[in-house]
Each structure stands twice: as C-alpha cells, then as structure tokens.
C-alpha cells in the first residue's frame, strides 16, 4: 500500500493518511474501527486462482444432483435448477427468480467479474471498463448467498430425514467447497491493491 495516501473512512467519513500497511495486517479507522486497508501477500494471484476454482465448482454444482431422496422404494434425485423450475411453475415466479439470483446468477457474476478484472492485471494488462465492472461487483456481492443456501440444505436434510433416506450428491459437496473458495477469494482481495496495480505505469 502506498503510505501517505489520504482516504476517507467509508463508515464515518473521517479522513486518514494511510500508514505503510504490511501484508497480512490491516489499517483500521481510529474513530469507528472500520477496516480501511487489508493487503494480503500475493492477494491478487490468490484471488484469481480461487475465482477460477470457484467457477469450476459452480459449474459442477449445477450439473450434478445435490440431493437424492428415497422413500418406499421410490427414488428421486434433484438438481438445484429443478427446484427453481418447480417453484416457477407453481406460480411462485418471484421467489423462483430470487432463489435463482442468490444461488446461481450472483455467485456466477461475482466470479466472472473477478476473473475479468484480475486475469488481465496478472498479465500486466488492463481490462476495458474495469472500474465499471468493479462497481457491479459491489452491487452483486450482498446478493450472493451460497453460505445461506448451505444452511438451507442442512435444515432440509434434517427435516426430511424422518420420512425418507437422504443421500447428499456430488453437487452438495461442490456447494460446500464453493462457500470456502468464495469467502477466501473475497478475503484475499483488497480493492486498493487493484487500483494501485491499475495505476502503475505499464
């Protein structure tokens, strides 16, 4: 991080002159405690690798059944998208769209945006419209809810355990891995490091 750079705290608006922040440390606002900078060692590279891994996991998670269900000799396996389609046909379009956005579209967009920004930077190039795209990332982030979906899977499994046999599918494990990959990816990325890399002369 460039020391001496002035920035305003995003939570209380106090101006700070950033000190030199070592990798793995964080600079916090002295007034409200918000994290102002948290550079990580090889943060960009790590975030890029995790984002690519995440895309693979997301593809797997949506192509394989995530839960199997056996009741009195009848078996049924289901994809996440089947559930969403099911809701859609039951006059629950709004809910179906919300579930689709929070479990498929937002995580996908989040990962694609990260790769779009980070891959060119890694190759010392600048993705056209990078800041524009980064703005979308900020809008998308709160709506990407993989970890909440995982809790939903757990609750459903317990709920159905009494009436049927539940077999977690490949996709369930992909979802689980995806949560950690997404969280690690967002944690290793300090946007200020991206700006710095962007503003470096080519």
């Amino acid at each position, binding site marked *: 991080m460039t020391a001496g750079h002035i*920035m305003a705290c995003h939570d*209380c608006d106090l*101006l700070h002159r950033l000190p030199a922040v070592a990798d793995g440390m964080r600079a916090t606002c002295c007034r409200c405690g918000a994290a102002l900078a948290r550079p990580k060692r090889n943060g960009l590279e790590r975030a890029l690798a995790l984002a690519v891994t995440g895309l693979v996991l997301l593809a797997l998670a949506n192509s394989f059944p995530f839960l199997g269900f056996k009741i009195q000799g009848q078996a049924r396996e289901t994809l996440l998208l089947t559930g969403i389609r099911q809701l859609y046909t039951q006059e*629950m379009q*709004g809910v179906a769209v919300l579930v689709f956005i929070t479990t498929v579209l937002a995580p996908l967009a989040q990962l694609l945006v990260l790769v779009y920004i980070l891959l060119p930077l890694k190759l010392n190039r600048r993705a056209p419209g990078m800041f524009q795209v980064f703005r979308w990332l900020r809008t998308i982030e709160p709506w990407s*809810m993989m970890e909440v979906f995982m809790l939903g899977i757990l609750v459903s499994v317990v709920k159905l355990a009494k009436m049927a046999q539940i077999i977690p599918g490949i996709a369930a494990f992909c979802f689980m891995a995806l949560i950690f990959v997404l969280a690690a990816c967002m944690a290793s990325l300090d946007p200020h490091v991206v700006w710095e890399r962007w503003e470096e002369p080519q």
Partner: protein
Amino acid sequence: MRPVARTAQTASLVSCTVCHLLVRRRPASAGPAGECPRCGAALHSRKPNSIARTWALVIAAFVLYVPANVLPITKVTSLGMTQSDTIMSGVIYFVQTGMWPIALVIFIASIFVPVLKLFMLLFLVISVQRRSTWRPKDRTRLYRITEAVGRWSMTDIFVVTILVALVHLGALANIEAQTGAVFFAAVVVITMLAAMSFDPRLIWDVKEPQDECEYPA
C-alpha cells in the same frame, strides 16, 4: 492509523462509495455532485434521502412481516392428507419432535433476525434524527451487524425450494410452496435494501472528530 482531523465532508471532499477515490466537491449551486471520475459511480457526500428511504423500507417490511408469518409457506400432501405449514408451525413441529437445534436455527433465522434487524434499523434512524451523540462507535457496530445478519433469513426460502424440488412423488408425498413464502421473501429483500439505504456516516455527523483519536505530532 494517522487521522487528519476532519471528515471528507468538512474538507469539501466526497469519498466515492465504490472505489473510495476522494473527489473535490462541487459547490451546491452547481447541482448534484456528478460521477466518480475513476469508476463512474454517482457521487454523494451522504447516501441520498437515507433517512426517508430507510423509514419507508422498514415500515414496508414490518407490514409484510405479518402475512409472512400468518400465511402458510408450504402445503404437504401425503396419501390424500393435506397439511399447511407456517414458519412458526414448522418451528413447533421441530420442538415437538425433539429436534431442538433445527428449531432454534429456523426460529433465529426466520423469526428473530428479521424483527431484530428492523428494530435495530429503527433505533439507528431515530437516533440519527434526534442528533444523538450516544456511543457512535457502538451504533456503527450495530449497523455492521444489521448488514451482515439479514441474508441468513433467506434460509427458509431455500428450504422451501429444496423441499419442493425433492418431495414431488405424486400421490405418495408432495410439497408445494404457498403465498406466505412470497411475503417472507419480500421481507428479506426489503430489510436488506433498508440496511443498504442507511448511511452510517450520519451517526458521526453531529460530532466533531477530535474526541476519539489521538494525533501524533
């Protein structure tokens, strides 16, 4: 952290909410602050109409919270018998069958968190309107909590989606989503929007920044 004893606003600067670039504020007579030269986001010294927007969304969420909890969210048909479940009857079912941890998870995520979050936002908005100087640091922390917990209320919506997808075995067993789920989803989305429209910097605007921080020479 070395502070400069002013806020961006008092220094006639605007901090971009997206990329944190500091931009010199144009005089009020020149109209709206315009766009961030780096990322193109609309520049606002404070989120526009933050208080009014938060109020409106909080009230809307409170109103929708009633049908979300009164109306059934699922209908289970099994061997000719039909049973409708509300969120609360689901919790009661788990308590009766001895599944306390799950009952607790659903109760906290679906019933407790939305109300708690709405009351916390209400408290924040009112405290800002009354220009309160009470514990701004703790109130900012409270705001961060409201931002972080809201998403967990989606749990029940996901459970409904999964149940509907799995339990689809014709006459044997069938689960369908009901109108309550629509209202409940609306409550979750609206409370999230309410938290996003509140601006925590308003908490600090009544204070001079000198009190809390030490300034090295």
